[in-house]
């Protein structure tokens, strides 16, 4: 009797778990589906309820935003900025984390924890002074301003993550390298970097996502030639008229590349967070 009870209980809990997960997946996916499908609907259909699941798709919104509104250029700009920021933070962050390790390896992790305090600065506080400074330096409207700024927003997190990762690497491993006669930089290249791979992958996806999707600084520090995709999407949100068709097309172009990259990097996301964030 007890065994039968136990088995049904187990089955019930299994069903409950699956039910919850299915609901969660639906709740996750439906909004994304809405945006993407809206980008292919005629404007008049977008606002009609009940929504038609089967409809004839149109490409007019994409045509309009790419030809008339130069969306291809925004895409290029977003790519330039995001890739540069990712590379920049990776190089600087891992270097700094290594520097911290060889400087004060025992408390390096705790020092780097203080970097996280940098997250407490609201963007609006530094937006205007930063604009003035960048402008005086003739950097506004170039790619340097957004790259530098967005890097700064992610650097504390990346450095902290890397420090955590490096802290996990056994000191004996590092010492044996120096025993073999390696300089410290060579040790960095040969021993540390390969072990950082999961963290690097984690950083790539998180930093790319953050800089690709940023709006406030990207809007003020760039001009016509360097606007990224987020500014392009914002443009269709008027106070007086929201063009849902173009807006959804713009949003889709903005969303899809990062989602694709995310899919490829999935494997590393969890392992990257494990050592870097969780242990130590």
């Amino acid at each position, binding site marked *: 009797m007890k065994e039968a009870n136990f088995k049904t209980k187990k089955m019930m809990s299994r069903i409950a778990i699956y039910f919850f997960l299915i609901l969660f997946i639906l709740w*996750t996916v439906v909004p994304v589906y809405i945006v993407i499908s809206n980008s292919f609907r005629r404007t008049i259909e977008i606002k009609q309820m009940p929504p038609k699941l089967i409809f004839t798709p149109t490409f007019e919104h994409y045509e309009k935003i790419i030809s008339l509104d130069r969306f291809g250029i925004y895409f290029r700009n977003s790519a330039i900025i995001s890739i540069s920021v990712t590379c920049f933070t990776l190089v600087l962050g891992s270097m700094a984390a290594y520097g*911290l390790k060889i400087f004060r390896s025992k408390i390096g992790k705790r020092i780097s924890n203080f970097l996280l305090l940098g997250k*407490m600065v609201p963007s609006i506080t530094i937006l205007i002074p*930063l604009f003035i400074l960048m402008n005086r330096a003739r950097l506004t409207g170039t790619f340097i301003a957004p790259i530098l700024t967005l890097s700064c927003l992610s650097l504390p997190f990346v450095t902290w993550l890397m420090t955590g990762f490096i802290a996990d690497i056994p000191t004996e491993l590092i010492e044996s390298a120096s025993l073999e006669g390696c300089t410290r930089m060579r040790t960095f290249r040969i021993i540390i970097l390969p072990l950082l791979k999961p963290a690097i992958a984690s950083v790539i996806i998180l930093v790319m996502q953050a800089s690709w*999707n940023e709006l406030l600084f990207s809007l003020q520090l760039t001009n016509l030639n360097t606007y990224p995709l987020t500014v392009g999407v914002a443009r269709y949100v008027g106070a007086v008229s929201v063009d849902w068709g173009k807006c959804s097309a713009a949003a889709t172009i903005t969303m899809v590349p990062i989602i694709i990259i*995310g899919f490829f990097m999935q494997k590393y996301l969890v392992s990257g967070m494990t050592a870097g964030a969780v242990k130590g």
Partner: protein
Amino acid sequence: MLNTAGKSGLMKRKTFELSLERGDLLPLLLMLPVLLVILFVMIIPLLYGFTMSLFDTGFGKKITSEAFIGFSNYAKFFQDPVALKAVFNTLAFSFGAIIGDLVLGTLCAVFLLQIPRFFSSALRPVVTIPLLVSPIVVGLTWRYIYDPRGILYWVLGLFGLGIQNFPGVTSSSTALLSTIIAHWWQVTPFVIIVLTAGLLAIPEELYEAAKIDGAGPVATFFRITIPQLSKVYVIILLISGVDTVKVFDIIYALTGGGPNNSSISLSIYAYSNAFEQSNLSYAMAISFMTMIITFLVFGIPFVRQNLSRSDRA
């Protein structure tokens, strides 16, 4: 060039960690670029902004000595009913957002690990999608969903419910909640990822010991899983909890701060003062107060925990 061959173990460790006194610049050189970037992009504008909050300045106005108004902006903050409402809203948002994120995230992370590996590795990438969407796109999407003539109410209509039952963004009682829901959609995936990492790090032996002692699943969950995860929760709080106090994009896109200022957040109030009401110095003061509040809520416990932990090698 380090030549440590032939030295004793202790000496090896010491020579590896060369200290500053020996004139060793490499560690500092490695850390320098990061420090420089943070200095120029964050610290200096921050100080500049703080200075601005002490003077009666605005766009295009110079900072002159007559315009010095000291801390009167900050005094004004405590007497400004809208500012205080914004504080309340921001903290309420933060609280609701974080609780929802953690609860939903924990349930999902735990459940994902209960189902066969094959399924969970297929589902996990899907679950992380909202994380990869820009806040402005999130705001727009949910604006479309919450539209009174839109999809949410059509679905509710199928169950016989309508806008009276859940007024969504149109009523001051539920506007903030609606923004919190949109936030949950976006941030829960991050919690799931970090918690999954944390759950995987829990040693199997603990669970086995619990089984031997005859503990049921619920007891195991509360006595072993959650305490083991406490460190991870702190990290989540620091990384995404702090972001909730700075909330701007989502609320701005969905409600604009209304109705009747029921969803105005501190960042929105600061933005409105800077650009819509030409009150730049007050805006700076508001954002500084935001920073201080964030530090009080998140920073102090964090600093205490960090400093009190015993030195672990």
